[in-house]
């Protein structure tokens, strides 16, 4: 009973703080409302016994939102205290699409005759996840890793303005590099 109430309460927090992301008129509040939504979902995943996934979700998303807040302030370049933040287009279409989606999904969820549970959970869920990632599902790891490396490279290529010729000069011989913001190692 207590578990049910806690689960529903967390769900409510997750949905409402998710809605608050697009309702509040402050960049920091929007970002951290999203972080709160992720923390609530992470705790719900803990209730569903997947401790590793739940804690990793909380860890990653709080960190990501801390960075996200910086990006918001950097790019939106306006003072939310002076200027209310309402920047939407096609609001009515979006509301209709969202509500329709929810109704269709909810109808599906309630009408489908869900099958009974198959099998029982492993004794140590985290260990099972690790063993399947390093064993039968190794291919997933093997694919995700190079994709992540490619993403890092692509992200840096897209985001970086200066190239190595800007840093080291036309013949790449300038040492130390000419950086607007020198690093701590002195390369």
């Amino acid at each position, binding site marked *: 009973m207590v578990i049910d109430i806690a689960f529903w309460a967390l769900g409510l927090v997750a949905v409402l703080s998710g809605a608050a992301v697009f309702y509040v008129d402050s960049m920091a*509040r929007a970002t951290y409302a999203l972080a709160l939504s992720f923390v609530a979902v992470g705790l719900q995943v803990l209730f569903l016994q997947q401790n590793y996934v739940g804690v990793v979700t909380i860890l990653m998303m*709080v960190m990501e939102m801390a960075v996200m807040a910086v990006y918001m302030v950097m790019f939106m370049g306006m003072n939310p205290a002076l200027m209310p933040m309402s920047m939407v287009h096609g609001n009515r279409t979006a509301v209709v699409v969202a509500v329709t989606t929810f109704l269709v999904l909810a109808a599906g969820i309630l009408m489908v005759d869900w099958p009974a549970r198959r099998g029982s959970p492993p004794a140590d869920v985290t260990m099972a996840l690790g063993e399947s990632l390093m064993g039968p599902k190794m291919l997933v790891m093997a694919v995700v890793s190079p994709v992540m490396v490619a993403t890092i490279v692509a992200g840096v290529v897209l985001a970086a303005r200066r190239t190595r010729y800007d840093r080291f000069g036309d013949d790449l011989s300038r040492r130390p590099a000419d950086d607007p913001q020198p690093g*701590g190692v002195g390369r």
Partner: protein
Amino acid sequence: MADPMAMPGPGSPTMEVAPAWAVAAVALLGALVVVAALLDGILASRASGGPGRTMSGLARPFGEAARLMRQRRRTTVQADTVLWRIGGAGLLVTAALMVTVVPLGDWTVFDLDVGVMWFNAMDVMVWALVWLAGWGANSAHALVGGYRFLAHGLGYELPLMFALVAPAIAAESLNVGRVAAAQEGLWFVVWMPVAFLVYLLGVAAFSVWGPFAPALGSDVAGGVRAELSGVDRLLFETGRYALLAAGAAFAVPMFLGGGAGPLLPGWAWVLVKTLAVLTVLVWLRRRLPAFRPDTFMEVGWMVLLPAVLVQDLLVAVIAVWRS
């Protein structure tokens, strides 16, 4: 439906106590905070010179606490009060959540099977909280402090994560009790010293302590705490000490053998070791130069991260070789 979030897994070496004991854990954390503050007061008095300073140093934290409790709260124009208060008070809550997974001898409040990750998730919370404390005041200096902390965070967080990975690999578990139990005979600090040092650096960093204090620097009028006053400031400062104490307490099961030791019972050894680590951290405050936020990231990524990764590799090779 099974009991949620229990699952210490089969054969956990620690015993989960009733949730009400969390109060005792928080009280213990509070006692550690007082000890750390007293120690810092003494060191501050001695640094300011003159004989017979110890007594005034002992009185210093209490005097400061009394002063802050009576101080009127400062208000700023257009402050985001909700976020500001969350940021100021959250550090203390985060520290309390950290110590729930630390076993005191044989007992632990929250015997989570992924306790190491839990600690890590909590220390990431500090990113959000310190930045929010800087943002909420709607003050330029406080916000500069918040950004300085995030700049440090980009440098210290990954080395800290990989430092925590090393004991987990060696113990083949993310459960804090099992990591402590795996050190029977040889403490992890002996054969993973790099991870231990980087971990201590990380603790100082998420407590905004010592070399990582530029976020609170006097060159930006106190940084994050520039506009914090009265009880809010007291909570923020207590939160920093509490994070330091929680970090020291977590080092004990991770690197220092948990409750292992002669004569004394396990819980006493945990406290003794925690106090020792805490003393070192407090003492280091005045011994290390500040890391500049703008240059520290390269140090973190070019020096600390490779060092810790090599450490992890060595630990993994040894772990495979032993099994």
